[in-house]
C-alpha cells in the first residue's frame, strides 16, 4: 500500500475545501475526507495484517524512500510497523469524530475545518515518518493549528491558553530539535534515518546527554510531569473538536516520539534514565488523579485525568519491558479514543446547558438519556472497567511493570495501581453529580438530546473503545512485535 | 609653506567632527541633514586628498567623490521629502516630535 496516500488524502481534502463556497459544502467535504481517511486507515490495517500473516517479518512495511534534500541527507522516508498502524487508526477515528461534533461551529467555518484537516496531516505524517527531519517537520505542522484553534475558536482565557500551549509545545519541539541534531551528528554517519540511526553505535556519553533532551521534549507533548500544566488550560479553552484533537492525537505524538525516537535510538540513555521516568510517571498518575478529584469544571476534570492517564503511557515506556511498552501503546490508543469521546460529551453538555460546572449540573440522565449514557460509558472506560479499552491498556501496563522486580519499579507500579481507586472516586463524583440526582435547574428540562452527527461521532468512538475492550488480542498482536523491536537493543544490553 | 596631505586631512577631520557635533546637538531635521552632508563632504575631501597625494596617476578617488555626491543628492531629496511630509503631519520639523518609531 502506498503510504503517501494517507498524507495526500487529507491534503486534497484541504485543497478542495478551499474551493468550496459555503459552510455546508465545507462540512460535507471534510466529512467525506475524514471518512476516506478512516477507510484508508482500515485498508492499511488489513493490508498490514495480510502482509504479516503472509510471513513478512520485516520491521517496517511499505517503505518509501525518496531523497528530499541530499546535502544534509534528508529523505522522505515513510514506513509502518504495528505501533504506527495503531496510531494511524486512532487518528482516523478521532478526526472523523472531531469533524462530526463540530457541525454546529458558526464562526469562520472553512478556516476551522481547514485547521482540523491540517492537524490530521501533521499527525499522519508524524506517525508514518522514518526520517527524523520529516518527523520533526510534521510535528511542527501538528502544533501550529492548535494555537489558532484555541486562540480563535476557544472560550474563556483563550489567548492566555493558546500562548501557553504553543510556547510550551514549541519549547518541547526546541528540545527535540536539539536532540535530533545531536543524534544527527553523533553517529558515524550523518543521517536522519531512523532505522539507520538505530543500528549506528552512539557512544554512551552522548546518549546520556541527548536522551533527556529528546524524552523531555516529546514528554512535554504527552504531559510529562512537571511539564503538564498546558494540558488543563489548553483543553479547557479549546473548542470541543480542538480538545478532542489535542488530547486524542497530539498528546499521543509525544508518547509515540518518546517511544520511537528517544527510546529506540538511545537505548542506553533510556536504560539509564528509566528510574527517573517511572518516578515522574508515577507522580503524574497519582498526583494527576488527586488533583482531578478537586476540580469543579468538567473539562478540567478530563484534562487532569488525561495527565494521570498519560502517566501510564510514560510508565509503560519507562519500564522498558515488551509487555509494558505494548501496554503503553494500547493505552495511547485507548486514551485517545476515550478522551476524545469524553471531550465530545462535555461539549455536547456544554452546548446545551452553557455550563461545565459540576455543581450547577444535575439529573441530566432524565433530560438527555443518550448523551448521559455516553457519559456513563466513557466514565466507566476511564476508570478502567473491563469490556472497555482502558482496562486492557492499564492491565497490560501493570503486568508489564510487574516484570521488573527491583524495588523502585515495584513502588511505582503499586502507586500506579492505586490510581484505579482515585480515578473511580473522581469519575463517580462527576457522574453522580451531573448525570444522577434531581434535575437542578428548571431550564434543563427542555433540552434536546443528541443530534444525528453527535450520535454518529459517539457511536464511532464507542465502537473503537468496545472493540478493543472486548477483543484486545488483535491490537496486542499488532503492537507487540513493534514493541519487541524497540526494546530489542535494551534487552541485548541487559544480557 | 606648501599645503600637504596633512592639512587636507586636518580640514576633513574637523569637518567630520563638526558634522557629528551638529548631528547630535541640533534638533532641527534640516540642520541634521546638513550635518550629514558635512560628514559626507569630509569623506569627499579625504578621497580627493589621498587620490592626489598617494596615487596621483589614478582616478578612483575622484570617481568615488562623484559617486558620493550623487548619493548625497539623492539622499537629500528623499530626506527632504520625508521632512516635508513630517512637517505636514505635525507642523514641525523638530526631531523630538518624530520619535513614534520605538519599542
Amino acid at each position: 500500500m502506498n503510504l503517501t496516500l494517507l498524507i495526500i488524502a487529507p491534503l486534497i481534502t484541504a485543497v478542495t475545501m478551499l474551493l468550496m463556497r459555503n459552510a455546508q459544502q465545507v462540512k460535507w467535504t471534510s466529512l467525506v475526507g475524514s471518512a476516506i481517511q478512516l477507510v484508508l486507515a482500515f485498508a492499511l490495517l488489513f493490508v498490514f495484517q495480510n502482509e504479516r500473516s503472509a510471513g513478512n517479518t520485516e520491521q517496517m512495511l511499505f517503505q518509501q524512500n525518496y531523497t528530499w534534500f541530499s546535502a544534509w541527507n534528508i529523505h522522505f522516508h515513510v514506513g509502518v510497523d504495528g505501533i504506527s498502524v495503531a496510531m494511524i487508526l486512532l487518528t482516523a477515528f478521532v478526526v472523523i469524530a472531531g469533524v462530526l461534533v463540530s457541525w454546529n461551529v458558526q464562526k469562520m467555518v472553512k478556516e476551522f475545518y481547514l485547521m482540523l484537516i491540517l492537524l490530521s496531516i501533521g499527525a499522519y505524517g508524524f506517525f508514518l515518518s522514518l526520517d527524523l527531519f520529516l518527523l520533526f517537520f510534521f510535528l511542527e505542522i501538528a502544533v501550529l493549528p492548535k494555537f489558532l484553534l484555541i486562540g480563535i475558536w476557544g472560550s474563556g482565557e483563550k489567548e492566555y491558553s493558546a500562548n501557553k500551549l504553543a510556547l510550551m509545545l514549541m519549547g518541547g519541539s526546541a528540545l527535540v530539535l536539539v536532540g535530533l541534531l545531536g543524534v544527527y551528528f553523533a553517529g558515524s554517519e550523518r543521517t536522519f534515518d531512523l532505522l539507520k540511526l538505530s543500528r549506528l553505535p552512539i557512544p554512551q556519553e552522548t546518549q546520556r546527554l541527548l536522551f533527556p533532551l529528546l524524552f523531555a521534549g516529546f514528554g512535554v507533548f504527552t504531559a510529562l510531569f512537571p511539564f503538564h500544566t498546558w494540558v488543563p488550560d489548553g483543553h479547557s479553552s479549546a473548542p470541543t473538536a480542538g480538545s478532542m484533537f489535542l488530547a486524542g492525537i497530539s498528546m499521543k505524538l509525544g508518547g509515540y516520539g518518546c517511544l520511537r525516537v528517544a527510546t529506540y535510538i538511545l537505548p542506553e540513555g533510556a536504560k539509564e534514565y528509566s528510574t527517573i521516568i517511572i518516578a515522574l510517571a508515577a507522580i503524574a498518575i497519582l498526583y494527576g488523579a488527586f488533583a482531578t478529584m478537586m476540580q469543579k469544571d468538567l473539562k478540567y476534570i478530563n484534562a487532569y485525568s488525561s495527565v494521570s492517564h498519560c502517566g501510564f503511557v510514560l510508565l509503560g515506556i519507562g519500564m522498558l519491558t515488551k509487555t509494558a511498552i505494548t501496554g503503553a501503546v494500547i493505552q495511547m490508543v485507548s486514551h485517545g479514543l476515550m478522551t476524545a469521546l469524553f471531550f465530545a460529551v462535555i461539549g455536547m453538555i456544554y452546548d446545551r446547558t452553557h455550563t461545565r460546572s459540576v455543581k450547577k449540573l444535575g439529573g441530566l440522565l432524565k433530560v438527555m438519556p443518550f448523551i448521559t449514557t455516553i457519559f456513563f460509558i466513557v466514565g466507566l472506560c476511564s476508570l478502567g472497567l473491563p469490556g472497555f479499552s482502558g482496562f486492557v491498556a492499564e492491565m497490560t501496563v501493570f503486568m508489564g511493570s510487574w516484570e521488573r522486580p527491583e524495588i523502585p519499579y515495584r513502588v511505582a507500579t503499586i502507586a500506579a495501581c492505586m490510581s484505579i481507586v482515585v480515578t473511580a472516586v473522581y469519575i463517580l463524583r462527576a457522574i453522580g453529580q451531573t448525570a444522577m440526582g434531581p434535575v437542578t435547574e428548571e431550564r434543563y428540562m427542555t433540552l434536546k438530546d443528541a443530534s444525528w452527527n453527535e450520535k454518529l461521532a459517539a457511536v464511532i468512538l464507542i465502537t473503537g473503545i468496545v472493540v478493543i475492550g472486548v477483543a484486545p488480542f488483535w491490537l496486542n498482536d499488532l503492537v507487540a512485535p513493534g514493541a519487541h523491536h524497540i526494546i530489542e537493543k535494551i534487552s541485548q544490553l541487559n544480557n | 609653506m606648501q599645503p600637504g596631505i596633512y592639512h587636507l586631512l586636518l580640514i576633513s577631520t574637523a569637518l567630520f567632527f563638526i558634522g557629528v557635533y551638529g548631528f547630535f546637538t541640533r534638533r532641527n531635521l534640516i540642520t541634521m541633514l546638513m550635518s550629514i552632508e558635512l560628514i559626507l563632504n569630509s569623506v569627499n575631501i579625504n578621497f580627493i586628498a589621498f587620490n592626489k597625494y598617494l596615487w596621483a596617476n589614478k582616478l578612483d578617488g575622484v570617481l568615488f567623490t562623484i559617486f558620493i555626491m550623487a548619493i548625497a543628492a539623492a539622499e537629500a531629496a528623499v530626506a527632504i521629502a520625508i521632512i516635508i511630509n513630517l512637517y505636514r503631519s505635525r507642523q514641525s520639523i523638530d526631531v523630538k516630535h518624530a520619535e513614534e518609531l520605538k519599542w
Partner: protein
Amino acid sequence: MPNVIILVLIPFLPLASFLILGLFGKSIFRNTSGLAGTLSLFVSFLLSIYTSFGYFFEYGKANGIYQKLVPLKLSWLEFSNGLSIDMGIILDPISVMMIMVVTFISLMVHIYSLTYMKGEERFSTYYSYLSLFTFSMLGLVLSSNIFQIYIFWELVGVSSFLLIGFYYNKPSAVAASKKAFIVTRFADLGFLIGILVLSFYSGTLDFNTLIQRLTSPGSGELKTAVTTSFLGISALNWGLALVFMGGAGKSALFPLHIWLPDAMEGPTPVSALIHAATMVVAGVYLVARLFPVLALSAPEVLELITLVGVITALIAALIACTQTDIKRVLAYSTMSQIGFMMFALGVSGYGGSNGIGFTASMFHLFTHALFKALLFLGAGSVIHYVHSNEMKDMGGLKKHLPITHITFLIACLAIAGVPPFSGFFSKEGILLAAYEHNPAVFWLALATSGLTAYYMFRLYFRIFWYKASQQHKHHGEGGFAMMLPLILLAVGAAVAGFIPFGRFVSSDGSLLTLPFHWLFSIAPVTLGLLGIFSAMVLFKKENGKADQISSFMSRVYKLVYHKFYVDEIYLFITRKVLFSMVGRPAAWIDRNIIDGLVNLSGATTKAVSERIKVIQSGKVQHYGLYFLFGVIGLGVLLIYVIKF
C-alpha cells in the same frame, strides 16, 4: 463430556438480553422487556440444571473424585513470558453449584420484579441491568483464570453500582451507589496487586496451573514464593492476603463492609439477588477457589480469614439487633452469615474429613442464598404493601400478607438454625468444624448464632405481630408473580438441608458425609430457641420492654446503633485526610507552584524585556550615538586589542 455450546449459552443468554434490552428496550420491547429477560434467563436456568446433572451424575467424576474440567479456554490477551488472560470455563463442584444458585435466584428475582417493578419508567433498563448482572456473575463463577475472575468481578461491581443507583434521582441512592463502587474498588486494588504478586511467582494466571504449582511441595515456584519476603511476610502470603482483601470488599467483611447497608437503597429484588444471595458471596467463592493453595501452602492467611470472618459475624449480628430499617437488618444479617461462611473456610483443612469446614461453608452459601433471597423478597412484599422500610410503619401484618408471613417465618426459622430447616444443617457443619479446629472461634460463633435467632425474630415479630392489625386500604399482597418466587424459595429453604451436600462438594472433590451428632446440636439449637423466645417476649406485643432495655444500656446501644462509628471513621479518612490533605494540596500545588513556575518564566521574560526595551527609544540621535560608540569601540577593538 460437557457440551461447550450449552455452557457458553448459560452466561451469554443474559448478555444477549442485556444488549437487546439495553439497545431496543425503549422502542421494541416497551412492554415486554420483563418477559423477554425472564424468558432468556429461564432458558439459561434450564441449561444450568442440565449441566449440573451432567456434571454431578455423568462426566464429573473420575475414580470417584470430582474433577476440575476446563472444557473451553480461549486466549484473550497474551502477555510475555507465558502469562495470558484466557477466557475459559471451569467446571468443578463449586462452580456448578454456583451457576445453579445464580440462575435460580436470578430467575426468581426476574419473576418477582415483573410485578414489583411494574409501572417503573425505566422498566426495560432495570431488566437489562439485571441481565448484565446475571451475565457477569455467571462469568465470575465459571472463570478458569484469575484475571478472568477479576474482569467479571469488576463487571458485577458495576452492575451493582448501576442497580443501587437505579432510582437515580434520589440523592441517597446515588451516594450509596458511589460508596458501594468505591469501597469495593478499593478492595479490588488489593485483589489486583495480589494477582500481580501471584502471577509473578507462579508464572501463570490459570487457576488450575496456579493451584498445582503453588501446592506441590517440590515446585520451584512455591519455593521462591515462600522464601521471598517483604516486611517479614512471605510473598505468597502477601499475594493471597491481598487477593483475600478483594474478596473481603466484595463480601462486605469487616472493615470493608460499610457499603452493604447503604446498598439497600436499590430496589428490593436487587438487594435479594445481588446483596444477599449472589454477588456478596463472590468473596467466599474466591477464597474457596483458591482454597487448596491457602490450606496447603499459606495457613497463616487462613488464620487471617478466620479472624476477619468471626469478627464480621459477631459485629454484624450485634448491629442487626439495633437497626430499625428492615432492609438494613437483613443487610447486617447477610454480613453476619457471610462471616460464618468465611471463618468456616478458615477453620477448614484440606482433603477428606478435614474438609468439613469447606463443605459446610459451601453448604451454608447454598442454603443462605435460598433463605436470604426469600427474606429479602418477603421484605420487598412488605415494603410493597406499606410503602416504607421502617419498622415503625409496620406491625400486625400477618392477616394482610398471609403468604408472605408464612414464607418469611420459614426463612427466619431456617436462618435461626431450627431443625429441620435448611439453615440448621449447614450451620451445624460450620460450628462442628469450628469446634474441632479452634474453640474460641466456636464460642464466638455460638453466641452469634444465638444473636441471629434473636434479631431475625425481632424482625419477624415486629413486622407481622407487635401491633394489632391495622386496616391498610390500598391493595392486596401482590400478584401471582410475586408470590410464586416466595413459595418456591420457601420450599427450598425448608428442605434444602436434606441434600447430602458432602457427596457433591468437598475440598478435594472426594465424597464426604457431613458428620452429624445429636448431642452437639443441643447447645446451638437451645441458644437459638432462647433467642427466638426473648424476641417473642419483647416484640410479640407492643410493650415497651425493648425500649427499657435499650435505655438501660444507652451507651452501648448508641455505639452499636451507630454501627461502631466505622462509617464516621471512613468519612474522616476520606474527607479530612484524602480530600483536604492530599487532593486539595495537589490541586493547589499544581495551580500555584508548578503552573506558577511556568507563569513565572513567562513573567521573567516579560520583565527583562520591559527593562531593555527603553534602549529602543525612537530618538534618531540616540541611535546615532550608539552607532558612533559602536564604531569607535569596534575600531579600538580591531586596532589595539586584536591588532588586525
